[in-house]
C-alpha cells in the first residue's frame, strides 16, 4: 500500500511519457493529425438554439454557429461590424443598421433584412418564451427599410444595445426558422457562423465542421476543420480523457487539479479571470416567508461578516480570482466600487445576530448548484457564528425554478453577465422585481431603471452607484468573489483565453 501510493505520481508521469511516445489508445480521434479538436461540455445542453438555453455551453456554441449584427473585439472591447456593416442611432430608441451583402446561411439561404426582422420580432415577443428575457426584452421590434437596411426599435432608451447585439442576439434564417421553430433549430442548427453543425445528439454529442463559405467577418475564419464536443459531466473524467488522449482541450478545471497538471509539464495550463461572480442571495423581501430571518438587515450583515472570502479565494479559487464587494464585476460599466464593505469578523457577526434576536443562532437552508466545496466552506463559516445552514444541492434548472417561485431564503449563486461588460447585465437582472429579485427594493429598482434607460453615461454611472450602494448598505447580497477559469490543453493546441469566459473555437489553432 505504502509503496504503491508513493509511487503513484512518478508512475503517472512515466505513463504520460509512454503516451507521448506511442499513439493514444483512446477511441476518439482527437489530434492535430486528424484536424479534429475534441472538447468536453460539462452540462447537458437543453437545446442548441441559443435563445432556448441559458448555459455557458450554449454561448460557446452560439458564437461558433451564428453571428450577431455586431462583433465586440474581446481584447479592446471595440465594436466592429459583423452581419451589419454600419449602424447609427436614428433617435433614442431606433438603431438603423446597414447589412452585409452576399452572406449565406449554412443551408444556402441568403442573408438579408428579412432574417433580421424575423429573428428580432420572434425573440422579442415574450409569448415565444425565450429563456433569458433580459437578452431580448429591450427590443420592441425590427423594421425592414430595404433588402439590406433594418431598424431595431427598443423599448425605451437602451444604451447597452450594441453590447447585446454583439453578444447574445444572433441572427437566424427566417425561412428555415419559421419552418422548424426552436425545436428544429435545436436539432439541426443553421446559422452564418464560422462553424456549421454536422450532427447533434441532444444533450450529449455535437460535431462542428468548418464552414467553408464563411463571410469576411471580424471573427475570422475557423482554422481547425472539425470540433467534436462530447458531454462529460465530471471534470475528473474529462481530465482522465485528457490524459489518455481522448480530449485535446478542457476548460473550467478546478484550481487544485490545474496546479497538479501544470506541475506535470505536459499540458498548457492558462488561468484567466472571468466576468462571473459568486454571491449569496438572501431573501430580504420575505418571499419565502415573512418571518424569514433574512428579512432582517442585521442577519444579512452578519452573514456578510461571517464568511472569510479572502481565505476562500486564496485557498479554493486561486488564480486570478479576487473578492468582490459590489453586486457586479469590477470591470463592468457602472460597477461602483466605493460601497460599504464587510470584512471577515465573526465576532461582529455574532453581535449582529444577537442584535437581530438570534443570539442562540438560527437554522436556514442554503441552496447551491455548483462548486459544492465552496458552499461547504461557507457552511462551516456560518456554523462558526451560530447559523446552522443545511445544504440543498440542486441542478441549476431545479434551483432556478425554486428561486423564481420565491422558495429559497439563502442561496449560493453565480452570474456571468453573459460576458456583457455593463452593470445592466447583472444588477438590473436581479434587482428589478424579476423572479430572482429577493430584495424587492423599489428605490433600487427605480434607480436602476433610470440608469438602464439613460443615454448619458454620467447619469447611468450615478444611478448605478446609488443602487449599488444601497444594495451594499442593505446587504441584500453577499458579493463573494470573481471566478477564474483554468484552460488546459495538450501541447498541440494553441489557444489564448479571453476574459469573457467564452471559448471561441474559431480562434483555436494547432501549434
Amino acid at each position: 500500500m505504502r509503496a504503491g501510493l508513493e509511487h503513484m505520481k512518478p508512475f503517472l508521469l512515466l505513463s504520460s511519457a509512454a503516451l507521448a511516445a506511442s499513439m493514444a489508445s483512446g477511441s476518439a480521434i482527437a489530434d492535430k493529425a486528424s484536424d479534429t479538436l475534441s472538447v468536453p461540455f460539462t452540462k447537458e445542453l437543453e437545446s442548441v438554439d441559443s435563445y432556448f438555453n441559458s448555459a455557458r455551453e450554449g454561448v460557446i456554441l452560439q458564437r461558433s454557429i451564428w453571428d450577431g449584427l455586431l462583433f465586440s473585439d474581446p481584447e479592446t472591447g471595440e465594436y466592429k461590424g459583423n452581419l451589419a456593416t454600419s449602424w447609427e442611432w436614428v433617435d433614442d430608441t431606433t438603431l438603423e443598421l446597414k447589412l452585409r451583402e452576399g452572406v449565406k446561411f449554412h443551408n444556402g439561404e441568403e442573408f438579408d433584412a428579412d432574417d433580421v426582422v424575423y429573428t428580432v420580432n420572434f425573440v422579442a415577443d415574450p409569448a415565444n418564451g425565450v429563456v433569458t428575457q433580459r437578452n431580448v426584452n429591450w427590443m420592441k421590434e425590427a423594421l425592414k427599410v430595404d433588402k439590406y437596411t433594418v431598424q431595431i426599435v427598443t423599448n425605451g432608451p437602451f444604451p447597452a444595445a450594441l453590447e447585446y447585439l454583439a453578444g447574445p442576439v444572433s441572427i437566424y434564417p427566417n425561412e428555415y426558422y419559421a419552418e422548424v421553430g426552436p425545436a428544429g433549430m435545436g436539432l439541426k442548427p443553421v446559422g452564418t457562423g464560422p462553424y456549421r453543425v454536422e450532427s447533434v445528439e441532444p444533450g450529449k454529442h455535437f460535431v462542428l465542421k468548418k464552414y467553408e463559405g464563411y463571410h469576411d467577418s471580424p471573427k475570422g475564419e475557423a482554422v481547425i476543420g472539425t470540433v467534436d464536443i462530447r458531454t462529460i459531466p465530471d471534470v475528473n473524467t474529462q481530465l482522465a480523457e485528457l490524459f489518455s488522449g481522448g480530449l485535446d482541450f478542457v476548460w473550467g478545471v478546478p484550481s487544485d487539479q490545474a496546479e497538479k497538471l501544470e506541475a506535470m509539464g505536459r499540458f498548457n495550463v492558462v488561468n484567466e479571470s472571468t466576468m462571473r461572480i459568486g454571491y449569496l442571495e438572501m431573501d430580504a423581501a420575505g418571499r419565502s416567508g415573512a418571518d424569514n430571518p433574512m428579512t432582517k438587515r442585521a442577519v444579512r450583515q452578519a452573514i456578510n461578516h461571517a464568511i472569510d472570502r479572502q481565505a476562500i479565494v486564496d485557498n479554493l479559487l486561486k488564480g486570478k480570482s479576487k473578492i468582490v464587494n459590489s453586486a457586479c464585476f469590477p470591470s463592468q460599466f457602472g460597477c461602483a466600487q466605493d460601497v460599504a464593505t464587510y470584512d471577515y469578523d465573526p465576532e461582529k457577526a455574532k453581535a449582529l445576530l444577537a442584535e437581530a434576536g438570534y443570539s442562540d443562532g438560527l437554522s436556514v437552508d442554503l441552496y447551491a448548484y455548483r462548486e459544492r466545496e465552496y458552499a461547504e466552506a461557507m457552511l462551516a463559516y456560518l456554523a462558526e457564528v451560530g447559523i446552522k445552514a443545511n445544504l440543498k444541492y440542486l441542478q441549476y434548472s431545479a434551483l432556478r425554478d425554486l428561486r423564481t417561485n420565491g422558495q429559497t431564503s439563502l442561496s449560493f449563486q453565480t452570474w456571468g453577465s453573459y460576458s456583457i461588460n455593463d452593470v445592466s447585465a447583472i444588477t438590473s437582472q436581479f434587482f428589478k422585481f424579476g423572479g430572482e429579485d429577493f430584495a424587492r427594493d423599489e428605490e433600487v429598482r427605480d434607480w436602476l431603471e433610470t440608469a438602464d434607460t439613460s443615454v448619458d453615461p454620467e447619469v447611468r454611472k450615478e444611478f448605478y452607484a446609488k443602487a449599488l450602494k444601497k444594495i451594499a448598505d442593505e446587504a441584500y447580497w453577499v458579493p463573494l468573489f470573481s471566478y477564474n477559469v483554468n484552460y488546459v490543453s495538450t501541447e498541440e493546441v494553441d489557444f489564448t483565453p479571453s476574459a469573457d469566459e467564452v471559448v471561441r473555437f474559431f480562434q483555436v489553432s494547432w501549434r
Partner: protein
Amino acid sequence: MLTFALKRLGLAVLVALTVSAVSFSLLYLSGDPASAMAGESATSADIEALRRLYGFDRPFLVQYADWLFSALQGDFGQSYYFKLPVSQLIADRLSITMLLGVCGISFALVTAIPLGVAAAVRPNSFIDRTALFISVMGQALPSFWFGLVLIVIFSIQLNWLPPSGSGSWKNFIMPTVVLGYYAMPAIMRLTRAGMLEVLNADYIRTARAKGAGEWRVMFKHALRNAVVPVVSLAAVQMGFMLGGSIVVESIFALHGAGYLAWESIGRNDLPTVQALILVFAGFYIVFTFLSDLANAWLDPRIRVG
C-alpha cells in the same frame, strides 16, 4: 404451457400497472409541474394558464388515466428540460443502456457459471475458495468506487482503456466489468449450490455408469439441470442491472437511460423520470416473464405434464 404463460402475462401486466400508478403518484406529490415548466419570467397567471393547458388542475385519477393512456400508445409527454418528446429521448438513450446490460449480464454469466461449476466440482479446493473470495469481494465492492479505481488503473496508469464515452467497444470494457461484477456473485453462488445438489443426484451417477466422460457429465447432464434457477436469477439481475446502470453510466459518462434518469431527477424533469421508472420496471417485468417461459422450456417437468 399456454395457460401458464397467460397467467404469468396477466400478473406481469398487473405489476406494470401498479408500478406505473406508484411512480405517477410519487412524482405527482413532488410539486407543481406548471411552475417548473413556466420558467423564469412567468407570472402567476402564466403558470395558471399552463396548468390549465396541460390539465394539471384536473383530479389526480383523471390525470393518471390520461397519462397512462398516452403512455400505452408510447407517448410519455414532453421533457421539461429538452422540450423534446420523452419517448424520443429515451429511445435515443436506451440502446446504450441495453448494450451495457447485455454486456454486463454476459460477463457475469461467462465468469460466474464456469467458476460456480469449478467450485462445485471440487468443493473446498483452492478454486472453490478463490471463487468464494471473488464473490464475497464482489458483493462488498461499492460499484461506483470500483469504477473509479478501474479508471485510475486502466485509463490513467496503464492507458489501455478510454475512461468515458461510448464510441468504441473499448469504452464498454470497464463499465461491463463493473456492472457484471455486481451481478456475478449471486449467479456464481447459485450455480455452485445448484451444481453441488445436482452432482449428488442419482442421474449423474447413472451418466457416469454409462461411461460418459467428466465434461459430458458436467455440462450435458449436470449443468443443464443446475442452470434452470440460474436463468431466472440472471433475468432478475438483468432487470436490476438496467435499473442500476445509473451509477455506472454516470461514472463512465455513458449517455444511457440511467444517466438520463439521474440528470432528469436533478432537473425536476418529471415526465422523463416517470417514463424511465416505468421503462426500467417494464424491463424487469419482461425479463422475469421471459425467464419464467425459459424455465418452463428448460424444465420438462413444467413444460410437459
